[in-house]
């Protein structure tokens, strides 16, 4: 543990995990909004929207995240000149958030869509029968019930997102995995302890998250 007794190393470790949490937080919000919207597209009666949603999911779900994040940096920023902040780290951070969000949205969309399928068809028919429009049906009847069914799968998506955030290290944001590499480089004799601390920190963040979502899913479940 002598490695983490050094204040510089410890600060790097803390700031690395802060970046991970920031990436996870911002991307989770964007991915949730985008994912629910895409799910609404995919169950809508409008063919164009359905096609758009299906294309989005097929493209982003089947492209390695590494490539997506790389494209955000070398495509959007380097080639097309999209600059999101004057501060270098912030800019890399937002580029990473874009990549993580569009990728994770595809998974959120599929989770929500599977939740929609748990709602009995009679619910939608009844909603139509009392004269609700498609979007009212979705908003007032279907999504609230679907949402309760997908708490646990969305928890899994969030956990995956948090681990995936380490990929943003490849475009120069010094997040936890980059800090770990740097510490390993300067302390080749303490590989196992360094690795254990970083893996353990991820576990300490994510295991409670998993339990929390399990508990929440139980509480919110629609008892049919």
């Amino acid at each position, binding site marked *: 543990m002598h490695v983490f007794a050094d204040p510089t190393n410890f600060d790097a470790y803390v700031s690395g995990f802060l970046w991970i949490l920031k990436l996870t937080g911002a991307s989770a919000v964007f991915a949730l909004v985008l994912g629910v919207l895409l799910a609404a597209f995919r169950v809508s009666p409008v063919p164009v929207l359905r096609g758009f949603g299906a294309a989005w999911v097929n493209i982003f779900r089947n492209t390695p995240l590494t490539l997506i994040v790389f494209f955000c940096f*070398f495509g959007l*920023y*380097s*080639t097309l*000149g999209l600059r999101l902040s004057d*501060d*270098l780290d912030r800019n*890399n951070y937002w580029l990473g958030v874009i990549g993580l969000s569009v990728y994770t949205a595809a998974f959120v969309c599929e989770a929500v869509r599977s939740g929609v399928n748990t709602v009995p068809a009679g619910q939608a028919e009844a909603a139509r029968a009392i004269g609700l429009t498609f979007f009212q049906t979705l908003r007032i009847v279907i999504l609230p019930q679907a949402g309760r069914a997908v708490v646990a799968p969305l928890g899994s998506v969030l956990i995956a997102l948090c681990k995936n955030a380490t990929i943003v290290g*490849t*475009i*120069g944001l*010094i997040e936890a995995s*980059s800090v770990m*590499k*740097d510490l*390993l*480089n*300067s302390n*080749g*004799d303490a*590989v196992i302890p360094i690795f254990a601390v970083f893996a353990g920190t991820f576990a300490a963040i994510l295991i409670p998250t998993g339990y929390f979502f399990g508990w929440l899913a139980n509480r919110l479940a629609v008892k049919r």
Partner: protein
Amino acid sequence: MRMKRVAAVAAAATLALGMSACGGDGDSGSGSGGGKGIVGKAQSQKKLVIGVKADQPGLGLQTGSNYEGFDVEIAKIVAKGLGVDANNIEWKTTVSANREPFIQQGTVDLVVATYTINDERKQKINFAGPYFIAGQDLLVKADSTLAGPEALDGKTVCSVTGSTPAKRIQTEHPKAKLQQFDSYSKCLPLLENGQVDAVTTDDIILAGYAAQSQYAGKFKVVGKPFSTEPYGIGLKKDDKAGCEKVNEILKAAASDGSYKTAWDTTLGKSGKAAPELDTTKLTNCGSV
């Protein structure tokens, strides 16, 4: 139904047997055999594992399964001096961030990869050499007016995570913005597009990049080195004998012309005259 199941089990069993039949062939892995150091390993096994860079034109560049460059030639000279034929060298790609761990864990026997000798690294590994003295410099666009490191404030500089040049920028020019990647090759498109104002590492590496055909005439090396980077050959910290042997080999290479040949066939193609290998500056291999 039952027949089907039996058939499935039989198929699975056949598969499993087939798999186990082509299991491990007892590859004992690489690394120096238990404290005998590289001299012992070279004598007994007649092969060496050497870490080199794979993405530095002129120094260590991988093309297909081949490695070429000045570092690679130096490694071949050292291997030959240890009695290992160039065909029996197992090349391993190292990046700046994994050189010490690779040596400490025995993944490689030697590292010849633009490896700056410094005190921090001497704590962990042993250095033979230096076989070349480079200096940190800046690569800028051909039309840039950036005159040197003192003009970096507020400018964006690209370098490699965990490398000496990156750390020097952080400590000596904290006002410069540092974009870090795992290899210099990723910095070049950014320099070309103007997202970074300069790429920084040792002058000789920069010259190699600038000379690549796809960047011909686009970049220039500023030519004001602001550090001294003696390139050494890394080996295990306790392998004093190996380190001394490598230094002897380097001395011999300086006098028999093989050092000059190594230069002329690689970096020398850029028209730069071969440097003198200063044998008085060789390390003392950790003896106090």
